[in-house]
């Protein structure tokens, strides 16, 4: 029995309890993120990131509820430096909730900055999404630069001798002659060599034709929605195809192909003639992206403020033409106010009876996720 005081030091390196429960907590954090994806994915910090970075997403701290006092109505005791007086403000400048104390054991709204990579987030996001109407295309077989050791030959150079197989062959031959199956008397015919083949990969290709209305009516909010939408769509397609290209088309009364930077610049001016963009899209498909070997995904974002019924009719025709060759055609109408009624263009589109044509209305940042889900819900081709 210990009588007074003693001291020791052991090796604790195999002790793992804390990290195991920490991992369970992290798992629950991830579940919480998943439940809140709609709000998380349209955050500016994420869609302007370079894609590999770790992003921090604020989620409400996971906490077991308990019976506790309302901290906003509670009085507490603190300690000054000798000169405190009634009316003094603690922590001036630090307004609102929380008191900058240890998070967790003090009430207040406790936010936890969960760290997650864009890849992980994309994994959660796309977990149960699929490519609609996926078709096997004639992919080019591209001979890659690499080689792979994936074959066995009976002749070869000694440095490539596969010892294990050679021994097996020898034992097998000995066994076949009625001897005890042992390894002995290696002959030339037992030798096996590893050999290589050139690395051949099948390329699967997809092209996104991103069309955007840049007429005067399209503002900062519309730009933001378009951008976050394309950010996730491209990420999603890359997870399914080796090679995803994007063609950017802007239009007002005329359409033109532009680079990415121009595409996301603010609206120009003038009226809107949507059909011009669809025509250009059809031309580009015809010239550069043969539907025999490309999966084609045209998407168009607009506020639906089109130039008259004549053009609307033309649009319907062109869309019908596009969906003959494309996997899906997505039309996103961005309306900042939920209360406005569908545009004339949307009304015209509603006559299209083809499940490859997918119209959505986006009124809020949080609508981006549901519309992605609508576009990429698993369905039969």
């Amino acid at each position, binding site marked *: 029995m210990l009588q007074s*005081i003693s*001291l020791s030091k052991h090796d604790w390196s195999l002790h793992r309890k804390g990290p195991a429960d920490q991992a*369970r907590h992290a798992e629950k954090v991830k579940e919480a993120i998943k439940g809140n994806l709609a709000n998380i994915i349209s955050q500016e910090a994420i869609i302007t990131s370079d894609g590999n970075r770790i992003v921090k997403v604020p989620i409400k701290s996971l906490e077991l*509820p308990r019976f*506790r006092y*309302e901290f906003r109505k509670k009085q*507490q005791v603190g*300690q000054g430096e000798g000169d405190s007086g009634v009316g003094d403000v603690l922590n*001036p400048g630090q307004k609102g909730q929380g008191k900058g104390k240890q998070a967790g054991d003090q009430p207040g709204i406790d936010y936890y900055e969960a760290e997650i990579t864009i890849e992980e987030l994309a994994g959660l996001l796309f977990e149960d999404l699929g490519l609609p109407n996926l078709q096997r295309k004639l992919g080019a077989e591209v001979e890659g630069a690499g080689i792979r050791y994936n074959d066995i030959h009976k002749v070869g150079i000694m440095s490539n001798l596969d010892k294990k197989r050679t021994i097996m062959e020898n034992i097998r031959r000995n066994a076949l002659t009625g001897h005890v199956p042992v390894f002995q008397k290696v002959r030339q015919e037992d030798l096996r060599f590893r050999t290589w083949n050139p690395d051949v990969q099948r390329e699967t290709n997809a092209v996104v034709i991103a069309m955007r209305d840049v007429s005067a009516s399209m503002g900062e909010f519309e730009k933001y929605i378009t951008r976050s939408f394309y950010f996730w769509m491209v990420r999603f397609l890359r997870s399914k195809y080796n090679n995803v290209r994007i063609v950017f088309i802007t239009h007002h009364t005329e359409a033109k192909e532009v680079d990415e930077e121009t595409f996301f610049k603010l609206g120009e001016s003038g009226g809107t003639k949507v059909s011009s963009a669809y025509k250009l899209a059809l031309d580009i498909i015809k010239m550069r992206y043969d539907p025999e070997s490309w999966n084609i995904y045209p998407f168009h974002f607009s506020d639906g403020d089109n130039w008259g019924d004549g053009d609307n009719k033309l649009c319907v025709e062109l869309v019908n033409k596009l969906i003959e060759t494309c996997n899906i055609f997505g039309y996103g109408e961005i309306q900042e106010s939920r209360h406005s009624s569908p545009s004339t263009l949307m009304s015209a589109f509603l006559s299209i009876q083809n499940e490859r044509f997918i119209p959505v209305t986006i009124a809020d940042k949080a609508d981006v996720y549901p519309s992605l889900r609508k576009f990429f819900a698993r369905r039969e081709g």
Partner: protein
Amino acid sequence: MQVDIEFRDLEEAAEKIWDIALKVGLDPYPTHFEIVPASIMYEFGAYGLPGRFAHWTHGKAYHRLRTMYDYGLSKIYELVINSNPCYAFLLEGNSPLQNKLVIAHVLAHCDFFKNNAYFAPTSRQMVETASNNADRIRRYEFLHGKLEVEEFLDAVLSIQEHVDPDVFIKRNKAEENKVRPERQTPYDDLFGLEKGLTEKPDNKQEKFPLSPEKDLLLFIAENAAHLQDWQRDIIYIVRNEMLYFVPQMQTKIMNEGWASFWHARILRELDLTEAEYVEFASLHSSVLSPSKTEVNPYYIGMKIFEDIEKRWNEPSDEERRAFGRKGGEGRQKILDVREVDNDVSFLRTYLTKHLVEDLDLYIYKLEGEEWKIVEKDWEKIRDMLVASMTNFGSPVIMVEDADWNRNRELYLKHSYEGMELDIEYAEKTLRYVHKLWGRAVHLETIVDSSNVVLTFDGEKNTIKRNS
């Protein structure tokens, strides 16, 4: 071998500190110190006990402590377990002086565990018990599924503070069939003592429980109809561990004050070099630094003990006359206080006007968007502090009726004493209570001066004014 020399030096210092501690009148349990790396220190800190059962809330606490340590925001120098012998942990990489201070500090904690009356009923084999509990829970995970056990633990832990450390004092089987006469005045429970109990009238429709129960965990474990054995066992485990921690929550200020008081005294008895003395002074003052938004238990506790010692060593003429203090009794007095008080009685009795002003304490609250000082009157400050310690800072929730609506619904009542509940949290917690009780649960409380009842019926939360 530098490390071996350091280890031997520390052993020597530890023995010297032990001798000094006994000489000044401390009476600790034998104490074993183990030097551990940061990951282990923070794990024990997060779990409260080594080897305690696994749960994600422990993982979260561990992660937070680890992160704060990794960023250099906070450091745990020591950790001590109330057991016999006491186990204490020193952080690997502490400087020799830090270790000396920590050892002195820990020995005063061990003295407190051994001698304070509130610790008398605690198990001194809790490390073994907790690790057996963890084994049982692991077995339940194996039998019933990890998620099932985790979700049940979530529910139990959400009401873990609702235990009654005094439950066995009140319980008396022989009295269970008797009732106290109906109260006429608030003091009837005192006057009624000699009158005794009356036989309970048979014909009256019985209320269950007969008188309100404070121990929610025990009540549910004993009376919830649908629980399986393993579930009841988990409730008893959590309750048992909570009862072990309650005295530590009831004596936080005293215990830390006591340890800080003695580490300073003991270190002055050691022959420190000048450099060590400077290091000691800076460490000591960082431990005792006050906070604007809460009272630092180390600081306020130590100040009160110092003040008591001084007032009993050199009583004023009035104190000599009025209380018959002879002077020179300081040491004996503080030893007595550490034996019989808890934070509530300690603050109520010994936090004087002089101390409140000297420590510059105040009451603050949220006004609009700013935290403002609203009170400097010393008695109000003392009473507020005492009130915030009552029931170790948790609201008191009583089981009023377990057969509410004649439908075995559970009716709880918050003993409102001026502080309102966080309604959002209360509603979420009721969902967990429902999971444990198995039928609708109600909670009566006060919101904005009106009496309301929160209900969770298994599908949705409702709140209504109590008529």
